[in-house]
């Protein structure tokens, strides 16, 4: 039982994400406020909290939980974050659907599907100072670890580290996409809010899986 968990138990990943986003509401808004419009924490918290309420209605497994989260983000949260994170979790839901057990390989397909789905609506690439700067290296680090034969846990640890490094890399970037792009050079010096929330999400996922694997 050391290298997989059940879809049923996997729902704990959802609750961990909800908690960590809620705990970081103010932090996310504060960094968005420095070069954006200061509502990123509000937007994310709103979506994840609506999901929390929905989950109280009936027990779900990981795939169902991801689908609910995706739908709420897409339907209830405006701007571009609703659709972007909505598709993020839609990809994960789709690839895990029907899988009773989630192992390192299944999780890899879930991860890899995210950038594919997002590319349908966002043209942002790493270097643009968006959540892509966290997402792309995090997924790549996990893939590389698995490819070189590392364990599920070890690959998750690599993913987490890459997410943090990716988030931090946005600090020195000039924003090229979204609201902060109009600041040009003045956008340097602050972490991108979307990369910060993306990092919180990857860390939450990794931490929740660690618990499940122990």
């Amino acid at each position, binding site marked *: 039982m050391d290298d997989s968990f059940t879809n049923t138990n996997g729902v704990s990943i959802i609750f961990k994400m909800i908690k960590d986003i809620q705990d970081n509401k103010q932090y996310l808004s504060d960094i968005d*406020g420095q070069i954006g*419009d*200061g*509502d990123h924490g*509000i937007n994310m918290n709103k979506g994840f909290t609506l999901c929390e309420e929905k989950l109280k209605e009936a027990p779900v497994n990981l795939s169902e939980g991801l689908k609910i989260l995706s739908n709420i983000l*897409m*339907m*209830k*949260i*405006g*701007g*571009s974050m*609703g*659709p*972007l994170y*909505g598709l993020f979790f839609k990809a994960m839901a789709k690839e895990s659907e029907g899988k009773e057990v989630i192992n390192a390989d299944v999780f890899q397909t879930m991860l890899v599907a995210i950038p594919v789905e997002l590319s349908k*609506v*966002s043209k942002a690439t790493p270097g643009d100072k968006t959540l892509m700067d966290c997402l792309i290296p995090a997924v790549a680090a996990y893939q590389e670890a698995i490819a070189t034969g590392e364990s599920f846990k070890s690959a998750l640890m690599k993913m987490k580290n890459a997410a943090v490094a990716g988030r931090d890399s946005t600090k020195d970037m000039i924003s090229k996409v979204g*609201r902060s792009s*109009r*600041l*040009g050079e003045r956008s340097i010096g602050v972490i991108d809010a979307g990369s910060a929330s993306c990092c919180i999400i990857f860390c939450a996922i990794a931490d929740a899986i660690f618990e499940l694997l122990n």
Partner: protein
Amino acid sequence: MLEGFAASMSSLIDTTENPRVLKLKDAPIKNKVGVVTGGGSGHKPAFIGYIGKNLCDAVAVGEIFSSPPAQMFYDAFKAADAGSGVACLYGNYAGDNMNVAMAIEMAKDDGIVVKTVVANDDVPSAPKDRRENRRGVAGEVLMWKVGGARAAMGGSLDEVINAAQKAIDNTRSVGIGLSPCTIPEVGHPNFQIEAGKMEVGIGHHGEPGMEVADLEPARKMAQRMIDIIIPDLPFVEKDDVVVLISGLGSTPPSELFIFFNDVKRILDEKKISVFKSYIGNYFTSLEMCGITLTMMKVDDELKKCIAYPCESWGLTQF
């Protein structure tokens, strides 16, 4: 805010089950194509000011400068559809494109047919060969006017869509910003314009323009703005045009009329004739100081649509 708006316009406007979707009291109107728009708020009278007779039937109202979620667009479609289909006439912004697309998928399941026209009248926001990337700005008002009128005249969904598309295809806009605006939640201006400077080609959320220039008198500003939009369509001798000049929020109305006078003089010289002009605050950006110039070339169909009466908070004409 929306509650107060609906209450003050209670003879014309109704709330819906979705507190962020308002509709024309009479909507859905039998045998009429529903006209829907939506977008982030902070652009008064857009968007709610154009819910009205022979204009928009329902509007989805996002947070300030932030696209409404798909659900809202979907609820607006439902509020507007009488079975003849819905024309969703909105502006070209990443969030709106995504959210409208998702809402259309949702509506499909209900058998509601939705077609779209995406306004992209803002010339400075992309070069002509990437016109599909251009943003929608004050030209949206003319798109709604035309689409709303065409629907009121009994046009089919395709006829309404074609008229609105023709309207926006023949419309070009450019904005100049003189002072920035502040999103209340943030509390500081979301961009800067140096004193004595102006941002030529500024977007409706303060998106940077093509050039920062020294402030200049209305006469020169008019010339500069006309030089940007005229060659782009191009507008030529003997064209009939609708001119829409909008303040961006805190521009004194008197300056709009001074500016119009200069525009009119230049158009007269070019033998371009003004079929109708709209001068006022039609599409603003919170309390930004600045001006947008929009011109639409009109043929007989567009003239008929523009001349058609309408009634709303933002635009009423006999």
